[in-house]
């Protein structure tokens, strides 16, 4: 007999009400499923995984999954995660943040976590808007876009979160979209297996707000946009800045080695304990 329910469902909390709170066609659920698949594939136990999130649409993710889950404060997921990891380095600590969460109110924590290189895997679900509060501009909202807080058009330039985190020192940075689901799973797997601070930026559609602001009326149109505007890192290397304008470069952006804080501290502590 075939199994009637997929293994993914075994990671969902049956005591939680489903369907989840996200709007129809929201990209966060796609990411959530990809994360569960990869965790299952690698074989982490539910007990060793800690999901830490901030505040916002994407930060509602942890409550639905059967891990140790910590729904922290707006922008501060990485600070909680740092404490969890250092107090118990055996735990696999994963943070889930949104673009406003990670790059605006939590921007300082983001760059310092990358600089410090504590072993935390972070996912920034970038939908280019504040969804939960009703469609205000975020630090990744494109210049000129009209939002509820920029009714005459956004006057600010957006952050490139991946390049920001790269400059701050992250050892692994990847970017993709929820349309590119197989690649999303590959990047999640690579980041989970990487020692040190890693970050994957996941472009995801907010159908209710950013889609509306961009004139993309449905999740299908938004995902088609992701498909049509994504350029692989390899291909992007052969293109100039004008050609790359408005495109999303996807793939592994950084993969390097640097001293890892928690491992260095562990060494230090063992030396001091011997004395």
């Amino acid at each position, binding site marked *: 007999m075939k199994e009637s329910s997929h293994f993914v469902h075994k990671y969902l909390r049956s005591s939680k009400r489903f369907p989840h709170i996200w709007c129809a066609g929201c990209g966060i659920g796609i990411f959530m499923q990809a994360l569960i698949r990869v965790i299952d594939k690698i074989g982490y136990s539910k007990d060793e995984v800690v999901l*830490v999130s901030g505040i916002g649409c994407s930060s509602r993710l942890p409550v639905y999954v059967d891990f140790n889950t910590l729904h922290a404060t707006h922008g501060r997921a990485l600070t909680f995660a740092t404490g969890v990891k*250092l*107090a118990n380095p055996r735990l696999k600590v994963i943070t889930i943040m949104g673009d406003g969460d990670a790059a605006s109110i939590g921007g300082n924590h983001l760059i310092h976590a990358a600089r410090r290189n504590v072993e935390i895997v972070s996912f920034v679900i970038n939908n280019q808007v504040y969804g939960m509060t009703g469609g205000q501009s975020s630090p990744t909202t494109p210049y000129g876009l009209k939002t509820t807080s920029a009714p005459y058009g956004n006057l600010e330039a957006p952050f490139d979160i991946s390049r920001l985190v790269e400059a701050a020192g992250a050892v692994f940075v990847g970017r993709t979209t929820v349309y590119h689901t197989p690649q999303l799973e590959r990047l999640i797997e690579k980041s989970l297996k990487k020692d040190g601070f890693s970050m994957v930026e996941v472009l995801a559609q907010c159908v209710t707000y950013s889609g509306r602001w961009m004139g993309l009326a449905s999740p299908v149109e938004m995902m088609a946009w992701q498909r049509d505007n994504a350029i692989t890192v390899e291909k992007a290397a052969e293109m100039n800045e004008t050609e790359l304008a408005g495109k999303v470069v996807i793939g592994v952006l950084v993969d390097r080695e640097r001293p890892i804080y928690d491992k260095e*501290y562990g060494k230090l*502590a063992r030396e001091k304990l011997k004395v």
Partner: protein
Amino acid sequence: MKSRKQSQVLLQGNEACVRGAIAAGCRFYAGYPITPATEIMEYMARQLPEAGGVCIQMEDEIASMGAIIGASLAGSKSMTATSGPGFSLMQEHIGYACMAEVPCVVVDVMRAGPSTGLPTQAAQGDVMQARWGTHGDHSIIVLAPSSVYEFYELTIQAFNLAERYRTPTILLADEIVGHMREGVSLPPQGELEIENRPRPTVPPEWHVPYGDPGTGVPPMPAFGEGYRYHVTGLHHDVRGYPTTRPDEVQALMRRLFSKISNDFERLQWCDSYFTEDAEMTVIAYGCVARAGLQAVKEARQKGLKVGLVKLKILWPFMRRTITGITESSRVILVPEMNVGQISREVKRVNQGSCEIATLNKIDGTAITPGEILSKIEEVYR
């Protein structure tokens, strides 16, 4: 914690705090440099690795507070220390720790404010902020040491209370207590009473993360122990899941208050001096209590029946203790290095049975015994 004591050591207040924390079982510290609390982080950075713990300098006080909450959830007793400006930044996460019931200790070595204020000078201006600094209704426990030894002792007690009630506990020291050096005799580790958070007594499937076991304090497993549960700053039901149901919100709020208020009788910590026949009582805390004791001694030499009650717990306010004093005294004097944050509480508790006098100093310098004595003589009659 009394009995046999070891030989005397000369310690700075901030160092005594670190000794107390480590003796209490603190194994995680996160902080950010700020005068006059920085020494706490510096001592921690040296001593925690030797104790098998972790000390990390974070990017700011918000992060420090977040990190100690994370560490506590992962099973470590944890602490941070700061002064006024950093204490303001920590308020967001102090509220989180109240709501999610995460034991942790926050030390505020008070300096004069508001804002950047007087970084190297003492004040007691954060008493109300310690009580109500974070938004929303909440309970909080605040202790105030007045000597180097008390800083040690109350740090241990702060951990004990934080663990017992699963709540953030604030240690409200001041620049004078933090920076002065005194010879102290620390008790041997074996003689300390150390409390630990209540632990689950049932298998994970039967554990209710935010249920009331009768004490008001739910047992607390650490992440990684098999008790997978959800922690949130949102109002939550007994399973930890977000809720907006009025009955569930009400039940949570009532429990968060009552787990501490049910124990008010146990939380009347003060030291009394010359109070047996006192017609007048000086109520003081922190560094001012030191000057208060000296002033009371001098007043006694002058034949004035004056006593001193030194408050060791500021919040929850010791209503029972203070009521007793208002009933036995003709007049109460509350000297403090603010414009009257505790005297306001004393007035609230006093049901017209005695006169309340105040002595307030807000220039960054300590209140002297002479100043208190003059005020005693003025209001004693």
